[in-house]
């Protein structure tokens, strides 16, 4: 399908991410843009959404009328039930994550490095100019949140990052080396942004798809590491 030119909105990013979900896959969606992907499962596919707070096989986001206090995802959003779903405790939910039972984990990110390092939990640098760990660990003055991201990044079979390509002030979020604290190293395999779809490979970052109207140069201009343009570069496919 063709789309208007420019950056894609959150729903569209989520829709592109959802194209990665194959029949029978178990998928965990992080907060923010990733959480929207539950609404875009391709027809005829059974995709089993897993959430850290103890459910497998929920449906799409619930409307206000459908919302039930006992059926939420880990982003504090009400979701809908589906036949064949199941519930479990937090320890079992993370046994599933840590044990490699999640086929795809879709996570938001502050930064992704060219090696696939993920940074998505600690806002701000936590080391002082001597490289010592300061901030909250010693003073407790600025508490960041980890949530389940580290477990997912370390345990899921495949990590897809869904995020905006740049910060609000236009700085690249796809970087050579993460400035922010790392969530896990060399874990990301695919980056889906509002501008591009980029695959992390041993050779480097491969630009596979570009948002409608954007050239590789447009994307490279706001990406820190050098991108390898795929021979079969396409417009983002939905």
């Amino acid at each position, binding site marked *: 399908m063709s789309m208007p030119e420019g950056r894609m909105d959150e729903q569209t990013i989520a829709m592109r991410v959802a194209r990665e979900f194959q029949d029978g896959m178990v998928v965990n969606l992080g*907060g*923010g843009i990733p959480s929207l992907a539950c609404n875009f499962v391709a027809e005829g596919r059974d995709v089993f959404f897993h*959430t*850290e*707070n*103890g*459910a497998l096989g929920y449906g799409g986001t619930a409307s*206000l009328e459908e*919302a*039930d*206090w*006992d*059926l*939420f*995802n*880990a982003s*504090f959003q*009400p979701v809908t039930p589906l036949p064949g779903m199941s*519930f*479990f*405790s*937090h*320890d079992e*939910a*993370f*046994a599933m*994550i*840590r044990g490699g039972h999640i086929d795809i984990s879709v996570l938001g990110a502050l930064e992704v490095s060219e090696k696939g390092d993920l940074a998505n939990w*600690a*806002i701000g640098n*936590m080391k002082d100019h001597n490289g010592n*760990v300061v901030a*909250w*660990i010693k003073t*407790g*003055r600025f*508490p*960041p*949140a*980890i*949530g*389940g*991201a*580290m*477990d997912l990044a*370390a*345990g899921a079979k495949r990590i897809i990052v869904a995020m905006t390509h740049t910060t609000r002030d236009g700085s690249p979020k796809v970087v050579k080396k993460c400035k922010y*604290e*790392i*969530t*896990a*190293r060399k874990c990301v395999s695919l980056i889906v942004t509002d501008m591009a779809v980029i695959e992390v490979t041993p050779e480097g970052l491969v630009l596979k798809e570009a948002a409608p109207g954007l050239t590789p140069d447009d994307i490279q201009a706001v990406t820190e590491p050098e991108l390898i343009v795929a021979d079969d570069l396409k417009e983002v496919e939905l």
Partner: protein
Amino acid sequence: MAGTQIRIFLIFWRLVGVSVKMNKIVASAREALADIFNGAVILCGGFGCVGGMPSTLLKALSELPVKNLTLVGNAPVLGLEAQKTAARTMQVPESYADGSLLLKNGQVSKLIASVPAMAIYRLQEPFPIVKALQEGQDIEIELVPQGTLAERIRAARAGIPAFYTGTGAGTLLEKDKEVRQIDGRPYLLEYALKADFALIWAYQADRYGNLIYKGTSRTFNATMAGAAAVTVAEVAGVVETGELDPEIIVTPGMYVDRVVVRQGETG
């Protein structure tokens, strides 16, 4: 040396049917928490906002003269405003409360959590933990990945003193932790998180302390049951012993010491 065989058929004290002795139901939350002491380590169930927060127990705890508590939970102190933000247009029950009540009272000296506050919510006021720190309260924060937190608590329940996990390897969380290579991959050594009390939410109980939950409200509640020296559960209602099908009981009564019927309709 063969001894005389003694056969006794007279006294056959086998118990048939339901006895009426053992009863874990306690009249009030205050009574159920009466022995919580200064410096106690408290596991706080639920997930944060949704997921079965033990509001009745936390309210009662906030009214007790205990301090220097270590509060352990996934996101136990986000506060009512965050809950309302999370719920968006859903009506949050008036009875909802979380561990932020304890923060306001200055009862907490240490917080062990995966989400002490949230960057993505913009609230009218700072998150309760940030506010407490701004007020000058001396609160130590131990940030633990959610899955590691769940497993450390499960380890306490299961008598596993320590285990290795790949979560956090190669990150800031390695600090002061043992790193071990197993099959060529680095893992961190994590210890069981031992606690004095576990305060948990459940849907229904019987007087033996058997518990069932509802939907996505098992969360840390079912994980924490039995992971502390004393486990106190708040429930919506108590049913007759035997009414809960043995196949559907999630938390066997062995893991539960006291049960309180909650006030109001908290999530």
